[in-house]
């Protein structure tokens, strides 16, 4: 990965008949768009992603934006970035380093330059490099003229001027013109990499339906950028990244948060029950609330509560009434919900709590990903309150995990925690659309027979209690947080009964391991080292393991979806390797669980920077471990 376009992949001349300029083939390209928060870089990136997906590439994206909505213009604090890796073969990450950096101003250049390898292409808006902007970005001299960028291929484009020329005569004010600059960049890059712009045109038409003059301006600027690429002499050739050979089927591009929302809707539809979301806005989880709010006709209830606590409590109330209940949040909200989640454990009502993990502690870095809520999910409640935990590993995997979380919650009458993170939430990848008819069954059977009904009379296999919802004659009963008698649920302070109930609930959760599929090992079933991961580290681990395996190293990869209970065959799987390495975006949490449960001397590899691992970082750590 991360090789400059000039040497990437098997570069080969190809002669498109239509284009007068030659275009060269590339295996993959990593582009990073960077600009002010208000420059529309996320939109530019998303649209370029959509164009690339439609061109048949495999893609992975990494948005990276500040928590401030509009930090002062031109400052480092306000730089927003979007990295995209598009490829003609299967890829797993958004790339370690960009082959192309688009910097809309000096601050965007300053904030990103350390990630850019020599010979990479840097495209800048020359006009944005005014003395004051250069100074505001912390440069002493203008980097475009002081030779500090000599090791890169710098392409200076007068984006602002060309944008304003493109809409000349339309009578738009300066601000409106300025806001079209991103479309010029998108048009130019679309030409450079031979992306079709039709999907962007369709997008613009729907986005600016109500403001025809803004639509016209954006379309003009987009096309001007595309044509500029063709006619300017700055680009000697265009590049082509052919379609990737990925599994056949119908695809769409999807972010983790969208996939999570759809997974919940699908689960509710399959169960035949309404979906109820109780939630309080928090970054980076809010998009799930936004998305679900648009699906009312399924039916989906979305309740924007007065706080995190109310969000989870309302969900439990809805669950008591028979809905598929969920709540969504991020780390700080998990703390606030903890007491209510403990109640759901105690009264054994199904619910899914989704934690879109972000960098902490406290408010931390709200827009940056981390994996430091695993132990909180395991143990962050008072009393003995075990909860199944599922973690998604890629944006598209969020769909399957959300679905599976509901399935387990309903089957075992328990709250389930679903862990994703900020990187998965906002990152995107192609998603092979599942066949709605072939999704696993989610069976909801409410208790209806009053004869012998007892609220804590358990299914002998799953140990789950009956779901008896209000409105059912003869099943009137009371549940609550007080310790309750086995079977009847009546308040009980009996010491032996309390232990029985605690142990029974623990057995119920542990028993879920029965249905966890056998652990999949990527690589050989035994060897010198296995890299064990969970969550969004999937991409960089898989890529790194592929690299070292290509060099003949006996290294394998195991990635966990089920973190509680752990798969029953995990211990023996891990014990077939001489070393167990666990990379995590935390101080070492899964590694503690593995060491404690299996007495295996697993070692951690940790990064707490609010940024995903680079492939090279993991690869280097593997190599060091193998050298012993």
């Amino acid at each position, binding site marked *: 990965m991360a090789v400059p376009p000039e040497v990437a992949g098997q570069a080969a001349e190809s002669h498109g008949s239509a284009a007068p300029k030659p275009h060269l083939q590339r295996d993959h390209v990593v582009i990073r768009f960077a600009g002010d928060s208000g420059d529309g870089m996320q939109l530019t990136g998303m649209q370029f992603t959509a164009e690339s997906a439609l061109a048949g590439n495999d893609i992975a994206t990494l948005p990276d934006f500040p928590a401030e909505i509009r930090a002062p213009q031109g400052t480092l604090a306000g730089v927003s970035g979007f990295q995209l890796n598009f490829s003609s073969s299967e890829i797993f990450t958004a790339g370690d380093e960009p082959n192309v950096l688009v910097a809309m101003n000096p601050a965007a250049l300053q904030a990103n330059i350390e990630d850019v390898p020599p010979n990479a292409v840097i495209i800048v808006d020359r006009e944005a490099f005014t003395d004051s902007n250069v100074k505001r970005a912390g440069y002493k001299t203008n980097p475009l003229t002081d030779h500090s960028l000599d090791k890169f291929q710098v392409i200076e484009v007068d984006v602002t001027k060309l944008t304003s020329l493109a809409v000349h005569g339309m009578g738009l004010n300066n601000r409106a013109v300025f806001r079209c600059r991103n479309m010029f960049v998108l048009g130019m890059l679309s030409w450079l990499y031979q992306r079709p712009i039709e999907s962007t045109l369709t997008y613009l038409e729907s986005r600016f339906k109500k403001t025809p003059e803004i639509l016209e301006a954006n379309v003009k600027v987009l096309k001007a950028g595309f044509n500029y690429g063709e006619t300017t002499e700055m680009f000697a050739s265009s590049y082509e990244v052919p379609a990737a050979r990925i599994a056949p089927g119908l695809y769409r591009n999807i972010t983790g948060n969208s996939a999570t929302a759809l997974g919940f809707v699908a689960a509710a539809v399959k169960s035949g029950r309404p979906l109820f979301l109780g939630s309080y806005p928090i970054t980076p989880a809010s998009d799930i609330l936004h998305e679900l709010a648009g699906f009312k006709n399924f039916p989906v209830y979305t309740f924007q509560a007065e706080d995190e606590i109310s969000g989870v409590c309302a969900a439990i109330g809805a669950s008591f009434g028979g*809905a598929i209940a969920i709540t969504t949040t991020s780390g700080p909200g998990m703390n606030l919900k903890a007491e209510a989640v403990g109640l759901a454990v105690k009264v054994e009502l199904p619910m899914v709590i989704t934690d879109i993990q972000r960098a902490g502690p406290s408010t931390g870095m709200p827009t940056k990903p981390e994996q430091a809520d695993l132990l909180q999910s395991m143990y962050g409640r008072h009393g003995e309150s075990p909860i199944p935990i599922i973690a998604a590993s890629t944006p598209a995997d969020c769909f399957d995990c959300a679905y599976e979380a509901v399935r387990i919650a309903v089957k075992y009458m328990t709250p389930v925690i679903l862990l994703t993170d900020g990187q998965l939430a906002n990152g995107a990848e192609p998603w092979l659309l599942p066949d709605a008819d072939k999704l696993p069954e989610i069976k909801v059977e409410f208790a209806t027979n009053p004869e012998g009904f007892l609220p804590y009379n358990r299914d002998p296999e799953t140990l789950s209690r009956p779901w008896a919802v209000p409105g059912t004659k003869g099943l009137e009963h009371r549940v609550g*947080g007080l310790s309750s008698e086995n079977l009847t649920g009546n308040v009980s302070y009996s010491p032996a009964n309390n232990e029985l109930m605690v142990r029974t609930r623990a057995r119920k959760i542990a028993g879920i391991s029965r249905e966890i599929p056998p652990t999949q090992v990527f690589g050989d079933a035994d060897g010198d080292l296995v890299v064990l991961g969970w969550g969004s580290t999937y991409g960089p681990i898989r890529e790194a393991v592929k690299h070292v395996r290509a060099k003949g190293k006996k290294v394998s990869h195991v990635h966990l979806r089920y973190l509680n209970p752990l798969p029953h065959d995990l211990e023996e799987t891990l014990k077939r390797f001489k070393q167990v390495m666990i990379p995590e975006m935390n101080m070492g949490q899964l590694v503690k669980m593995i060491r404690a449960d299996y007495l295996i001397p697993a070692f951690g590899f940790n990064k707490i920077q609010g940024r995903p691992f680079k492939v090279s970082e993991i690869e280097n750590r593997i190599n060091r471990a193998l050298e012993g």
Partner: protein
Amino acid sequence: MATALNRKDFVSDQEVRWCPGCGDYAILAAVQKTMPEFGIAPENTVFISGIGCSSRFPYYMNTYGFHTIHGRAPAFATGLKISRPDLDVWVVTGDGDGLSIGGNHLIHVLRRNVDLKILLFNNKIYGLTKGQYSPTSEVGKVTKSTPMGSVDFPFNPITVALGTHATFVARTIDVEQKHLGEMLKRAHAHRGASFVEILQNCNIFNDGAFNDVSDKALKADHQLILEHGKPLIFGKNRDMGIRMNGMRPEAVQLGAGVTESDLVVHDETNLSLAFMLGNFEPPLPTPVGVFYAVSRPTYDGAVNKQLEDAKAKQGAGDLKTLLGKGDTWTVTS
């Protein structure tokens, strides 16, 4: 249906465990006695509570019940009522549960006007934790946690509720069985969030807190029974009234030139009047009855209306269409 139900249908098999002499017994009795009159079957009725003495209430009702966590009952009830508008949902809370740890949820459930019947048992003390002052305890209250007297200025449940523009706000007293039953009926008949403050005696930790309005000898001179459209008259001999002196209310003796026509006439739809009455302090009498009752769309009703509208406009949700929306492309082998 209504004739088929009786008090016993609402009495659970659980032993009631409040302290002997607790005001909660009287409230439970009134609720169990009144419920059959609503004609709603026990299986369609849900009692939800938080934590505290009052919150044990659901265990004693032979309906569906949920004893939840401290202060959060309104949130649980909101989730249930939104998704199950067919149910008759009651919330039982106390002054600590509803106004201290759960104050946030209470004000929000009231302003949203979720169709819930909310009974707040106010005994001006923390009973279950053995006698600390509560958010309704008066300044100077000496308790275990305030040996030199509380310096905490109290909440007034009625004006807190009115401040949220709650659509139904009433006050009654545990020992006034008839009035309590009437208030339960009024609360139940109201569509929207009905808030009823029930003055309740804690005979262990705060005995006699409401003596002036509950003691047979004293109450007539200290209770002002609010009745819509009627002048504000009170007193053992029904010869005292409330008159406006400029912008201020005052208690006056009827006769000697003062007639009923000089008195304020209660109007349940007048929020300003309700606020004024809510703020009555001695020497003015303590108003009981319905302070305020107006009609406003319920939150749960509006939410479900949006779901129906969405379905009418877009049709019932189709999973296949949903999964495949947006730009898609086909990869062939």
